[in-house]
Structure formats: structure tokens, C-alpha cells
């Protein structure tokens, strides 16, 4: 019985670790393999403050959460610069350094012998010693951590995290603040992991470096993979499974060293078996954003296409210049985008069309030149800030959030979401819920306008190519930006689909948007654009209306043929 209760406590501790780790790798796609460091810091802070400073519960727990949360913020900084396998390696290195610090800073951590004699957690004057009385406390802590993680995972913020996981630049292009998301999710994940550490220290009344080695991080990783990345209930199951499995060894009489090795072997084998036979884990990532019909609110078509006064330059670039090494991609480019008009950017491959988009939307800084939006000079704004100001762009390679539903792709792009802020998420949950319900209807209305309403609950990766292109338009409209830059919205489409998108662009322009498209198809350009800018070798060689430009003998020879 004692053993069963003990296993229960260990499951609670690992459930906290696995769910918090899942927020990082499963939701945010941040493969930072140093989770045991957060676990360790939580344990050591609790051990030291309870033992040396005699602080009563819950002060050690609170200090653990704060201290470890701060470390989490610091660990986020490398993740802002590097990603993928480099982040994996650097965080594993951090893990090794942390263990070295624990072992070598003997005066503080007790070195290899660790810290023992940590006073028991006492509630209302009653010490919780032994698994039987500790288990309820552990269950409560685990449940609280799980609810916090789920609240974040299911929120608009969680949706933005998944968008960042699917494609970071696309998330920035719909106005998401990547810096804020990375830093805050690291902080939250670390703080949650420290709760597990704190429980561990109180429960065993001992902490030592052995419990927090790299293999511990790999164990937590295995739990997340086995349970299913992106599924928090799965993480709890994964934790339970991997805690219980090796306990079966307890019934076999084995020397201590061998048992520890066998345990590792079991973890490793289970991890590999799952990767091979069920890579999605025990539980799949849930389809979020609803499965049922969502009411369409408002008439997006009417709203977006009500004739608005045309005219007036909204976005203006003057004397833009950009060099890459010795190559001048953009050289003294002047460009003006006007409300109510569709401007086409044409020219041969390598003329600098996409680079021009990158400069206008903050994805690349210009070496020289000014960009003015509604007459105001823009200085060093990051992409998400420009989207919020009113300048949004799409990508030639689409960059949809492939693993999210069509509806979510649009929903995530809607501006001013209160649920994107962690504080608001917890302090004003009802406001967030209300706004998100309204936003969902709004997103549905946009899909209705675009003609994708019937695919709203399918994954974006299951769409046909033409539907993907439509979704790109829908996502861009959702940003509510006034200036929309489309990078090859028509390429690869058949005549019917092309007609449909051109029609959408015309209607958006009529509704007061300033639109710029990069395009190669001359027929499409003729019917879509009011104005053309012919770009070659980074310079605007000619500007004017399509008919005039396409009749220009010199340009015909160069490009239009």
C-alpha cells in the first residue's frame, strides 16, 4: 500500500513536469532540453529556504516559483536567437553546466552529498510526512498546475503559441509578438516545473544532483512524447505510464545498480517504440477551435466591400536601398500604395520584388531610404508592430499554420486579442472568453466571405492548393490591416480560381484597402491591377497603368514579350 501511495506522489510530480514541458515543446515548438534544471532549481530553493532560513510553507514554494520563473525568462534569451537543433544542444549544455554548479558549489548545495533533513511540509500545524498524508497535497498541486497549463493551452495565447510552432515568421506576419510569447512561455513553464521540484524536496526531505541529470530531462521528454505532444491529458498519462512501468522491477529481486540501469533501458525502449509505432503518442493533439457550426456574425462581405472613398497615398517608400554582401537587391526604389487601388509589382526573377515587400513590412531593415505610413515616418518597427499599425503581407510559399484548423488560421490573425496577454488571461478570463467567442464568429464571417466556410474545421494541411491560396487571403484580411501586400497570390492557379481571387482583391480595394501584389501572369495583371511598377535589378524602371506599360516597346522586349 505504501508503495502504491508513493507511486501516486511520483506520478503527480512527473505529471507537473510533463505538462509544463509540453507547453514548451508541444505547444510552442521550443525544443529546449533543460527542463530538469528548472525542476532542480525549484527543489533547491525550497530545500535551502525551508532548512536554512526556516521559512514556513508556503514561502519556500513561492520563492521557488519566482526564482525559477526568472531563470526561465533568462533561458528564453538564447531561444530568441537560435532555434531547432542548436537550441537543443545549447540547452543540453546548460543542463550539464547546471549539474556542475550543483556538484561544485558545495557550501551552498552540499555538493555530491546533497541536502538532507529538509523539514516536512506542514499545513495547519500538521506535518505531512509519509506518502499517505502527502498524496492529497501532491494531487492538489498537480491539479492546480494542470489547470493553469490547460487554461493557457486552450486560450487565444495558446493558439498563438501553436501558430508560432507551425511557422514563426507567419505568426509575426499576423501581428504576434514572438519575443513576448517565447519569454513568457519559458517563464511559465519553468515556474510550473519548480512546483514539482518543491514537492520533491518536501516529500523526500532530501535533494541531490543525481535526481536532476540529463537523463531526467530525457525521461520527462519521453513522457511528453509517449503521451502525445500538444495534448496535456496525454502528458499526465505518459507520466503515469513511465512512472509505473519500471516499478514492476520492484517485484524482481535485483541488485540496486542493475535496477537503475534497467529503468533507463525501459525508458529508452518505450521512447523508441512510440517514435516508431505511434509517433503522435497515446493521445493526439486535440482539434481546437470547435467542431460544430459557429454562428456567423455580421456581414463581412458588406463590411469589407462597402465602397469607400479611393485616393490618398497610404504607404510610401522613398529612396529605398538594400544590399546583401556585394549584391544590390534594391536600389533607389520609390513606391507609393494608394487606398482603393491594386498596385502590381512586376519584373523578372531576382528583380527585388520580394525584397521590396520585406523592406516595407519590417522583415528586413532598409540600408537607406524612408518609409512613410499615413504620412508618418516608420522607424525600425518589427513585423508584428507594422501589422498592428496596418501593414500586412503574405508569403510566396504561403506559410499557413498547417497543423491548425482553417478557422484557427483566420482566428489567430484577428487584431487586438486580449487573450494574447498572459495577465489578462488569468485576471479577466470572462472578458477573454467573450471576446474570443465574438472573434470566432468574426473569423467565420471572413471565411464565409472568402468561400471557405465549409472547410472551417478541417486542418489547413488538408486543403487543396487553390483553397490554401484562398486561406492566405482570408488570413491577411483578418489582420484588418489597411495595406495588404500579396506575394504571388495567383501563381499556380487555374483560370477559375484565379478569377475568384482577382475578384476578391478588386472588392477589397473597392472597400478602401491599399493592395499591392507581386505577379507574373500578364492576363491576371491586366485584369487585377490599376497601376504597375516594373522592377528590374532593384530599380523601378517604369510606372503607369497596365495598358500603357504593356504597350511600351522597350518593356515588351525585356519582359512582356
Amino acid at each position, binding site marked *: 500500500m505504501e508503495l502504491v501511495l508513493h507511486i501516486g506522489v511520483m506520478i503527480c510530480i512527473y505529471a507537473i513536469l510533463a505538462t509544463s514541458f509540453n507547453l514548451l515543446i508541444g505547444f510552442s515548438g521550443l525544443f529546449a532540453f533543460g527542463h530538469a534544471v528548472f525542476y532542480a532549481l525549484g527543489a533547491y530553493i525550497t530545500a535551502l529556504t525551508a532548512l536554512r532560513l526556516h521559512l514556513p510553507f508556503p514561502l519556500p514554494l513561492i520563492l521557488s516559483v519566482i526564482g525559477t520563473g526568472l531563470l526561465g525568462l533568462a533561458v528564453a534569451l538564447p531561444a530568441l536567437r537560435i532555434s531547432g537543433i542548436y537550441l537543443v544542444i545549447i540547452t543540453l549544455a546548460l543542463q550539464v*553546466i547546471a549539474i556542475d554548479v550543483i556538484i561544485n558549489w558545495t557550501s551552498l548545495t552540499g555538493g555530491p552529498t546533497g541536502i538532507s533533513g529538509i523539514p516536512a511540509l506542514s499545513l495547519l500545524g500538521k506535518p505531512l510526512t509519509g506518502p499517505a498524508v502527502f498524496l492529497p497535497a501532491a494531487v492538489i498541486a498537480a491539479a492546480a498546475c494542470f489547470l493553469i497549463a490547460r487554461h493557457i493551452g486552450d486560450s487565444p495565447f495558446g493558439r498563438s503559441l501553436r501558430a508560432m510552432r507551425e511557422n514563426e515568421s507567419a505568426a509575426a506576419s499576423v501581428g504576434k509578438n514572438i519575443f513576448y510569447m517565447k519569454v513568457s512561455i519559458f517563464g511559465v513553464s519553468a515556474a510550473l516545473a519548480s512546483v514539482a521540484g518543491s514537492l520533491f524536496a518536501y516529500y523526500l526531505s532530501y535533494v541531490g544532483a543525481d535526481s536532476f541529470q540529463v537523463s531526467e530531462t530525457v525521461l520527462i521528454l519521453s513522457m511528453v512524447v509517449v503521451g502525445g505532444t500538444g495534448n496535456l491529458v496525454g502528458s499526465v498519462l505518459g507520466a503515469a505510464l513511465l512512472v509505473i512501468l519500471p516499478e514492476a522491477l520492484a517485484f524482481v529481486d535485483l541488485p540496486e545498480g542493475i535496477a537503475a*540501469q534497467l529503468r533507463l533501458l525501459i525508458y*529508452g525502449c518505450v521512447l523508441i517504440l512510440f517514435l516508431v509505432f505511434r509517433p503522435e503518442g497515446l493521445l493526439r493533439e486535440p482539434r481546437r477551435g470547435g467542431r460544430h457550426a459557429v454562428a456567423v456574425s455580421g456581414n463581412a462581405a458588406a463590411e469589407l466591400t462597402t465602397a469607400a472613398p479611393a485616393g490618398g497615398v497610404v504607404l510610401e517608400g522613398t529612396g529605398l536601398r538594400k544590399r546583401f554582401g556585394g549584391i544590390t537587391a534594391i536600389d533607389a526604389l520609390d513606391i507609393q500604395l494608394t487606398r482603393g487601388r491594386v498596385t502590381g509589382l512586376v519584373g523578372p526573377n531576382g528583380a527585388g520584388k520580394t525584397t521590396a515587400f520585406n523592406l516595407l513590412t519590417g522583415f528586413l531593415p532598409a540600408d537607406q531610404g524612408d518609409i512613410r505610413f499615413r504620412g508618418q515616418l516608420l522607424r525600425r518597427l518589427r513585423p508584428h508592430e507594422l501589422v498592428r499599425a496596418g501593414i500586412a503581407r503574405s508569403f510566396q510559399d504561403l506559410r499557413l499554420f498547417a497543423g491548425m484548423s482553417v478557422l484557427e488560421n483566420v482566428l489567430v490573425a484577428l487584431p487586438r486579442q486580449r487573450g494574447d496577454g498572459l495577465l489578462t488571461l488569468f485576471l479577466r478570463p470572462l472578458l477573454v472568453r467573450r471576446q474570443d467567442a465574438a472573434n470566432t464568429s468574426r473569423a467565420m464571417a471572413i471565411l464565409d466571405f472568402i468561400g471557405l466556410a465549409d472547410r472551417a474545421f478541417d486542418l489547413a494541411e488538408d486543403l487543396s492548393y487553390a483553397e490554401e491560396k484562398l486561406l492566405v487571403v482570408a488570413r491577411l484580411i483578418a489582420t484588418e490591416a489597411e495595406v495588404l501586400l500579396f506575394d504571388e497570390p495567383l501563381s499556380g492557379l487555374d483560370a477559375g480560381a484565379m478569377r475568384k481571387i482577382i475578384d476578391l482583391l478588386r472588392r477589397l480595394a473597392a472597400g478602401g484597402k491599399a493592395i499591392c501584389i507581386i505577379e507574373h501572369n500578364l492576363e491576371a495583371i491586366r485584369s487585377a491591377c490599376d497601376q504597375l511598377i516594373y522592377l528590374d535589378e532593384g530599380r523601378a524602371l517604369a510606372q503607369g497603368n497596365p495598358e500603357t506599360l504593356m504597350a511600351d516597346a522597350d518593356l515588351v522586349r525585356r519582359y512582356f514579350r
Partner: protein
Amino acid sequence: MDLFAQLLANGLGNGAHYALLGLGFGLIFTTTRIVHFAYGPVFAVSAFAVWLAVAVGGLPLAAGVVLAPLTAAAAGALVYWLAYRPFERRGMSSHSVLILSLGLSIVLESLLTLIFGPNIHTVPGFAPPIFILGPVFLTGLQIGEVIAVLGVAGALLLFLRQTRYGHAILALSDDRDMARIVGIDTDRISLIVFALGSAIAAVAAVFTLLNEGATPSMGFNPVFVAFVVAVVGGLGSIPGSILGGFLVGLVESLGLWKIPTEWQNSIAFVLLFVVLLARPQGLFAGARR
């Protein structure tokens, strides 16, 4: 000053060791884009093969040593063929392959521990010759490893530049898709690269065996050191790997002048941390092979 000279010599000896590790790992990573954590256990397996042959089988050391690269090449190729290749075929993400390699390295390491026990296994009756040059004390192993790394690097350069397979490897590390389009059998080339990279690691493993003995976990640190060296030197550059190896060795060794010994292990990791953040393309990137 005498201490400095000694630390310098030690640094060069360790640097040669690290350069070998970085060469093998870097070759595998740049060509296949796989972060091969199981490089560690393969490293350990090759050392144990030599130990078995010499200490248990009674073979002369010179004969046993030849076994190391052969075993490692076979083990490395096997890991690629049975584990990584099926994964890549199924189009799994690079993160899944990385997690797989972490899992593999745990499984292989614990298998080694179950078979051999956690103790240190040394080659009985081996003592390296010792040279005393003024104040500096050198072992034959340190000198041998410097010679080994230069020999291996030279042979590798020749192989890459002069042979058909070498050209295919270079093409693959430049652009995988393009290599496939021009008809290079990427599976076969990856297999060769895994065998070759593992064999290079085995050279270093033999020196570790002779120096300190073999343990099942002996491959854990080398994976990281190899990654540090490959990244510090700039991925895909042979001269870079060698410079990177010596740089890490020297920094680690000369660091002991001011830093207590117990921190020696951390120095390489701190170096990795700083380099990855400040210059992810590596210190000597641009020095293409």
C-alpha cells in the same frame, strides 16, 4: 611559466583528441543533417571491442587497435540503416530523428552498462612511453594523438577531394535535394559517411581506452565536445574542426591556470554556449574544405 608550458602541452594533446571527435561528428552532421547522439555509445562500443580483444581475447594491442575503427564503422552504419534511415523515409521531422537518437543513446549506454558493469576497464600491462622536454612532461599518447589527427585529416581531405564518393559527400553536404536530382544515391552516401565518421571517432576512443580505460558512459561527454568543436570550427570545414579542437583543448587546459580543476568540464560547455549565441555559424566558418 613551467606550469604554463605544461598546460599548453596538455592542451595540445587534448585538442588533438577533440579535433578527432569533431571531425567525425561534423562529417556526419554536415552531410546528413542528423544530430547523432548515439555517436557516444558507438564511441564506447569501439573502445570495448579493443578491450575485449586485448584483455579477454589475448590479442596483441596492435592487432586489437585495428578492430576499433572497424567495429565503430559497422556500428555507426548499422545505427543509420536500422534507425535513422527508416525514420527519414517516413518523412519524420528532424526533431523526431533527434529524439530518436537521444533514446538510442540511452538504450545503448544502459545495455553496455548491463553487459560490462559500470567499472573502468583498462588494458592490462600498457604504459605509454614518457618524454621529458625540459620542464614539460609528455606521454607517447599525447604525441600519438597529434600525429593521428593530422593523418586522419589528411586522409579525409584526400578522400573527399580525389574520389568519386568524396565528391558525392561534398555535393550532399552542399545541397541534399540537388544531389538527389543529379542522381546521387543519398542513402548509400549517408551510410558511408556514418561508417567513416564513426571510424574517426574510434581513433579517439582507442586513445581514451589507453589513457583512462573504458566505461559505458565514456561517450557522453565526447558527443557534446564533438558538437562544440564542430560548431566552434564552423560546420563543414575540416581545417575548422581541427582549429576548433585545438582551441577547445587549449582554452580548457589554460583555463586551469586560473580556474579550479573541478570546473574543467564546464569550460567546453560555456564555450559552446557563448559561441552558439554570438556566432552560430562558427568561428572559422568560411574556411571551406
